[in-house]
């Protein structure tokens, strides 16, 4: 573990948790840092909606195939177990879990993943979601990395609360609702931009995010205005 990188990551995350921060942009940053810091191949943050379905809020890669692997875990997989038990679930040898999660392990193997971890996002006695980490190489998880991963999951939980405190009197449920709707907006905008420009979903997300940052606007607001044709995304860089 590179201690300097670790320190820099937490300083960077704390710096980004300022008033009026952008939740989706922040969670993408957190997912990216999971990859660079923990040596994982892919990471995703999932929140549970009001029906208890896990929904991807951010991922280190916006490609459809990775999102599908997160979504599949609403039927079976480490995230589902982690969310239901409120405790971390680790599968260091994914191939050995075929009996436990047949569909999930098959899909994960197709993507070249050999190990997976799910860390709970807990708020007091409630589990609000999970941080999901994928690694290509199988093998045991380093305990130090695991506690750092849990700390990152806790930061993701805090970001949801932080978002709440910037809006007067909104309960967690409403906050989640807003966050989930923001994510829907971004998916709709990704689809429109990808189709219009002939680019893939990750490129569309990155372009929208870069544009929002350059114009100091929330990703969800840019997405909404783009869909409603009130934001032409001029000077968009792909």
């Amino acid at each position, binding site marked *: 573990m590179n201690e300097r990188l670790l320190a820099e990551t937490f300083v960077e995350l704390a710096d980004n948790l300022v008033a009026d921060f952008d939740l989706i942009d922040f969670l993408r940053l957190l997912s990216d840092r999971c990859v660079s810091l923990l040596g994982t191949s892919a990471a995703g943050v999932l929140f549970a909606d009001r029906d208890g379905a896990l929904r991807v809020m951010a991922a280190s890669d916006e490609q459809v195939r990775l999102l599908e692997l997160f979504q599949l875990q609403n039927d079976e997989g480490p995230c589902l177990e982690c969310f239901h038990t409120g405790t971390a679930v680790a599968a260091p040898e994914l191939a050995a879990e075929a009996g436990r999660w047949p569909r999930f392990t098959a899909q994960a193997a197709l993507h070249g993943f050999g190990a997976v971890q799910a860390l709970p996002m807990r708020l007091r006695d409630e589990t609000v979601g999970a941080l999901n980490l994928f690694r290509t190489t199988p093998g045991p998880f380093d305990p130090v990395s695991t506690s750092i991963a849990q700390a990152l999951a806790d930061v993701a939980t805090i970001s949801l609360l932080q978002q709440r405190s910037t809006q007067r009197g909104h309960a967690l449920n409403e906050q989640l609702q807003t966050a989930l709707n923001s994510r829907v907006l971004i*998916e*709709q*905008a990704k689809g*429109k931009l*990808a189709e219009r420009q002939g680019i893939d979903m990750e490129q569309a997300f990155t372009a929208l995010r870069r544009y929002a940052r350059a114009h100091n606007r929330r990703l969800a607001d840019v997405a909404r205005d783009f869909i*409603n044709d009130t934001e032409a995304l001029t000077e968009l860089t792909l």
Partner: protein
Amino acid sequence: MTLVAEQAAQRGARVDLRDVCTAAVAALPVGGAGISAMSTSVANYPLCSTDGTSEQLEELQLTLGEGPCVDAFTGSVPILTPDMADSELQDSWPVFATEALTLGAVAIFALPLQIGAISPGVLDLYASKPGPLGAEDLADALAFADLATLILLDSVHGGPAGMPDNKEEETGYALEANGYRAEIDQATGILTVQLGVGIDEAFVRLRAHAFTHGHRITHVAADVVAHRLRFRPDAEPYRTDQDR
């Protein structure tokens, strides 16, 4: 959501917004419910209400341009007001807060009808006693709002007759048994370009295609995202993987 279907069955008609409002009042600790069509481009108007108070609450808010319904629409967020007598509200809604109390609406819960950028209106619920909606009641209220969203969209954009809007688990958006799918939203965005229509209509066309062909909407959406299925403005969608 069987309550909603029962309401429609009692009237011997297709499920409509009134059924959603009536069912919401039966299921939740509220005295009345109303739905208004909201838009940034054309005038807002009340669509239905379960009683006189609800009707007046809708009309007041739309006329005054203030109130929980207006804030829920502009902010795209539920506005839950457990006590309208809260003095802070006099600043937010100086006229409406007083008028609502006079009408006996002591608590008002306004839920935007929305799926991302699709936001055709607001569901307003009022109670004659102060107090918050419990977590389960709020979850139910949000489910009623989701159902109302689909029904309103279909009625405005002409979803196919017989669309099973009371059986969302079959072809629907929100209540997919296996959870939310991002591809539905991505496909909706893609269809705005392929069809040259707004996001509301794109979503209705996606659902309608799934329904008329007896496919799950998630499968149709996945085909659209993977470029296996293309929609065209003046013709049936065509599959690109059957030409080979």
